């Protein structure tokens, strides 16, 4: 069916013939994917002086020989990084298990899994860079392109987006627009739907983040101070004091009749309780 439409598109324009809207739309969308938010074409990243930024998820260059295990004599590795990778390798029965920790360590040292970072990790682990590239390109948290040093992951999965995560990431992107230090990413479910919409700032979970708190959050990230100290996940109580229980500190059971809105859904008893946070701990 698509092929037929394509052929028709090549025909000369049929003047004064009103084509039904659906068919016109289909012809037009053949050129680009449908939907309100088409996938942006990734432009080739370049350095300021014009040459291409090398990245590991580029297509394979078939004119080059496959890379070998890097020669320790010609591959300088920071002793600290070497010690860290070797410590990881010693923990496992098979040293290859340390691939992810080693790449994460190399990424911490280099900012991203750059060709140098991967070569150094490969040199210490006695693996080919190709093997480590195959690992690095699989995992979301291993960056195969240069990124800003402040990793700000915004969860945009179902629970968070029901609570306004799409507006939140939009706001954070506006606030950090043009700042190369920021790596703002919409991330898969980060496992903190109880504080939705939430943000992971360099591993520290904060939420729920209101749109008006975004400037404060961005400023704190720039300063390197703890992000939104009174909204960090670690301060949250596990048991919500507002949850309606017949006896505090117990849980409902299979046998209990349920007095909650049996007739009138939507009418839960009692006022909704806000999440109570203890007073913020002062750090530094």
């Amino acid at each position, binding site marked *: 069916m698509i092929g037929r439409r394509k052929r028709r598109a090549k025909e000369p324009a049929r003047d004064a013939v*009103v084509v039904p809207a*659906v068919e*016109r739309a289909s012809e037009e969308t053949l050129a680009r994917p449908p*939907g309100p938010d088409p996938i942006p074409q990734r432009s080739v990243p370049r350095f300021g002086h014009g040459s291409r930024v090398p990245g590991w998820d580029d297509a394979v260059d078939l004119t080059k020989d496959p890379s070998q295990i890097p020669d320790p004599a010609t591959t300088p590795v920071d002793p600290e990084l070497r010690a860290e990778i070797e410590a990881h390798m010693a923990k496992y029965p*098979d040293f290859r298990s340390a691939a992810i920790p080693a790449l994460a360590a190399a990424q911490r040292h280099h900012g991203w899994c750059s060709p140098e970072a991967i070569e150094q990790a490969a040199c210490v682990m006695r693996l080919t860079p190709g093997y480590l590239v195959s690992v690095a390109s699989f995992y979301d948290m291993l960056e195969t392109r240069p990124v800003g040093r402040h990793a700000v992951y915004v969860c945009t999965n179902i629970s968070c987006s029901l609570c306004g995560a799409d507006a939140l990431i939009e706001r954070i992107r506006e606030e950090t627009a043009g700042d190369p230090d920021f790596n703002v990413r919409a991330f898969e479910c980060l496992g903190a739907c109880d504080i939705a919409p939430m943000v992971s700032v360099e591993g*520290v979970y904060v939420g729920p983040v209101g749109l008006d708190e975004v400037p404060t959050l961005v400023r704190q990230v720039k300063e390197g101070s703890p992000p939104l100290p009174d909204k960090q996940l670690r301060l949250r109580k596990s048991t919500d004091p507002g949850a309606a229980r017949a006896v505090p500190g117990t849980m*409902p*059971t299979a046998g209990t009749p349920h007095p909650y809105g049996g007739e009138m859904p939507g009418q839960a008893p009692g006022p*909704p309780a806000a999440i109570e946070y203890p007073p913020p701990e002062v750090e530094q």
Partner: protein
Amino acid sequence: MTDPILFAGIDEPDLNTIEVYTRRGGYEMLRKALTTMTPEEVLDELQASGLRGRGGAGFPTGKKISFIPAAQIDKYLVCNADESEPGTFKDRELMQKSPHLLIEGIVIGAYAAGANRSFIYIRGEYVEQADILDAALLEAEAAGYLGESILGSGFNLSLVVHRGAGAYICGEETGLLDSLEGKRGNPRLKPPFPANQGLYQGPTLINNVETLTTIPHIIRIGGAEYAKIGTESSAGTKLVSVSGNVQRPGNYEVELGTPSRDIIYGLAGGPPEGRRVKFWFPGGSSAPVLLESDLDLPYDFNTLAEAGSMLGSGAIIVVDDSVPVVDVALKLAKFYKHESCGKCTPCREGTRWTVSMLERVDAGLATPMDLDIMASVQDRIIGNCLCVLGDAMAMPIGSMVAKFRDEFEAHIEAARARNPFGDEAPEPPPPLVQGAVGA
């Protein structure tokens, strides 16, 4: 009313340190199991308890351990802490607040399975929790609860906290094993099952965090006593993560078999004032959706399975009537498309085409026939892949299309009326329209 088991004293300050944990009676069950019981006795208790895996599949834990061969070879225990199912955050809470309970459960579980190396595969995003586990690990080693001849019993166990790097598929047990071996996290063909050939080709027991943290309590009260909690087929308590459009999202421990309405309205406060439950996912985003009329179902494995859904990881996501179902479906499909590892064609292509078709629906380019095609794509994914990631998208999307078909069709009509050219501002304007207007 019973007392919580996993969440007993969970908010006690510094429960993550070994001092507070042992003061509260921690590691006593480890001592009891290792010094007074044989591995077979521990296994008998677990089998009698009727404990079912809390990670999603709900496989009986005792039976899983009994599949591990008894031969004198290297055996492994892997704790699956790669909690990535959207809506699930129970393991995070347990690891953050009570890491020693997990370590105690791992040691007892490994003792029953005869494993002498254990790993906690924690997702890379849980930085704070992994740090807490690392600290707890050092404390437990220093106190002699891990390492050589634990408590003089002659049982050795090493434990490593392994951090992942962000991949949903690594929560699937064989994908997790590949990832732990330092490869891309692609699932493996089963059989052989991990109990026979898992990590480094050795027999491997893989269990969820919540399953393992329940083990010390079973040793405390005995398997038969534990089986009395909950319903006949679903014994014990379950941590339920409630999120989405509810007033008090959070983790709640409930006895299995509690009416779902008690959880959603009683504990989590129900949807915001003036809204109603439109549909809800009973077991994470992979579970087929249930409607408001299903709210009185008891929350246990079998009832939800009979209702055409599943308990899964115990994550309830509530969606209220202000949210279009197409938005939720599209969000869901995009997530699974991103997370599909690409190994099996039905999942890789099926998730991609589902996203494309949902985008057509959203853009007003679809016809009701597209919904049939979409439903048939879901049917062709289910059961045709190495792992259940594709099914995890196909089941909820299929159930949404089936249960909200009217709304999907209305959405298509509305989008087409709003946007007859398939775009808000056609670029460039189609020449035929100009011709038509000129004539």
